[in-house]
């Protein structure tokens, strides 16, 4: 091993380490959110004006709702933006988070084969549609991964008298995109969030059959991680970001986000 090469290598390593651990110049806020907000591109679109205005760098970590709240509990996030109302309330009740605010909602829809063997097209109630799917013995793809969408799916099945038990019920255990592809392959019915649906709609031969019912609404909450539990969190930065998101400017930005000419997230912040 010749020395010049070693020295050069050492210099490279030190330079790289320096970029990793150098002085942290801009203020950072870590927002932990769900994959649906990041995959759709909302988070990038939404945070641009805030970062330009304030110079605060927002780091978005996108995980499942369950993991997002766990990161808040551990103090690894400054702010959480999730859709799991029951768990959110628990998170606040246990003192991990403070000042939960409604911020926006998006919606789920029931998609299925164009031939619609269970004849659910145009029904208003998702539970009624699920009941007909079950009665007809048609195939249904379940996320089966304890995601927010899966939790909603189970709630609708409970209302429809429980999920089918036969071979027509496919427990996929995968993300929304792969499940849509699976539903397309098997010409099955599926509950999907609108964002992922729009991204995949051109690639799957399925139709939207049931949509628009209030029972299909998916509300998102934003919660500050409690600085009394975790003194190291950037509480002031997180508050600035939260205040901006629920302000008229932030809410307008949420409503302005579109994919394929469709609004994905509807602003929902109410006054304090």
């Amino acid at each position, binding site marked *: *091993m010749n020395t010049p090469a070693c020295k050069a*290598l*050492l210099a*490279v*390593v030190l330079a*790289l*380490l320096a*970029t*990793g*651990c150098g002085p942290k110049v801009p203020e950072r806020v*870590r927002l932990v959110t769900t*994959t649906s907000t*990041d*995959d*759709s*591109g909302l988070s*990038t679109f939404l945070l641009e004006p805030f970062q330009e205005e304030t110079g605060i760098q927002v*780091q*978005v*970590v*996108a995980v499942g709702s369950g993991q997002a709240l766990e990161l808040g509990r*551990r*103090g*690894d996030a400054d702010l959480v933006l999730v859709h799991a109302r029951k768990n959110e309330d628990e998170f606040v009740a246990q003192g991990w988070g403070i000042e939960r605010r409604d911020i926006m909602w998006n919606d789920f829809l029931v998609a299925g084969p164009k031939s619609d063997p269970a004849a659910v097209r145009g029904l208003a109630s998702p539970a009624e549609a699920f009941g007909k799917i079950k009665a007809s013995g048609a195939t249904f793809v379940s996320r089966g991964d304890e995601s927010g969408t899966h939790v909603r799916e189970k709630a609708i099945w409970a209302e429809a008298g429980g999920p089918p038990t036969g071979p027509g019920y496919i427990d996929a255990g995968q*993300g*929304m*995109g792969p499940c849509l592809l699976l539903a397309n392959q098997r010409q099955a019915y599926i509950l999907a969030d609108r964002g*992922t649906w729009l*991204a*995949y709609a051109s*690639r799957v031969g399925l139709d939207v059959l049931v949509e628009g019912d209030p029972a299909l609404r998916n509300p998102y909450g934003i919660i500050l991680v409690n600085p009394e539990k*975790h003194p*190291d969190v950037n509480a002031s930065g997180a508050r600035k970001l939260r205040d901006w998101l629920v302000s008229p400017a932030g809410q307008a930005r949420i409503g302005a986000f579109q994919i394929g000419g469709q609004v994905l997230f509807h602003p929902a912040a109410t006054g304090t």
Partner: protein
Amino acid sequence: MNYITGGVVEAARLVVTGDPEVLHATWVSLSCTLASVSLASAIAIPWGAWLGLFRPRGYRAQVFLLRLGMSMPTVLVGLLVFGLLSRQGPLGGLDLLYTRTAIVTGEVLLAIPLMASLAHGLLAGLDRQVVETALTLGASRPAAMVRILGEVRPGLVSIVLASFGRCFTELGVAVTVGGNIRLYTRTLASTIQLELGRGELARALAPGLILLAAAAGAAVAVQLLSREDRR
């Protein structure tokens, strides 16, 4: 499938136009991998070589540990490093979770067992006489090891490239402790996963092709080096 041709076109477009997100992800992948492989080499090659040449005490146990570590799933390593660096963990005060340093930490842990195991195999397979000769020439054990390592340079290069491949393409660590933060800790591999989740199959293929190009480059480098050695 037309998404493959579409992906190739899209990949070329992203690279040629210098798409900032793709370039940045390439830079993150490359810089983290170079740092990890360099650090891991400094530890793993002497370790593996020492084991192979001198069979020190605890030899079997160490070799077993290295072999185990070599096939550790990257997500498991990610999970362990997450536990270390999370604010609730023993190193939480350093505030390193979701930084490139966290990715490097995980990749070093991935690369060390791989490199040490391969270095052990390389040197344990040497003719014993080479080792004995080096020692009887009056060299100390460390000096003999350095000398012998100099003799097997081409083998070491392959080992370094193997670990480069493992770190450059891994996903588990990059997502679990890097956090896949845009323009900060997003790597080529985590870009693929993200674009797939978004349903942007063509955009997912672009970083995949860059990874493939890097792998091809590494393979060519190995061939050139081994040819030079034969001369």
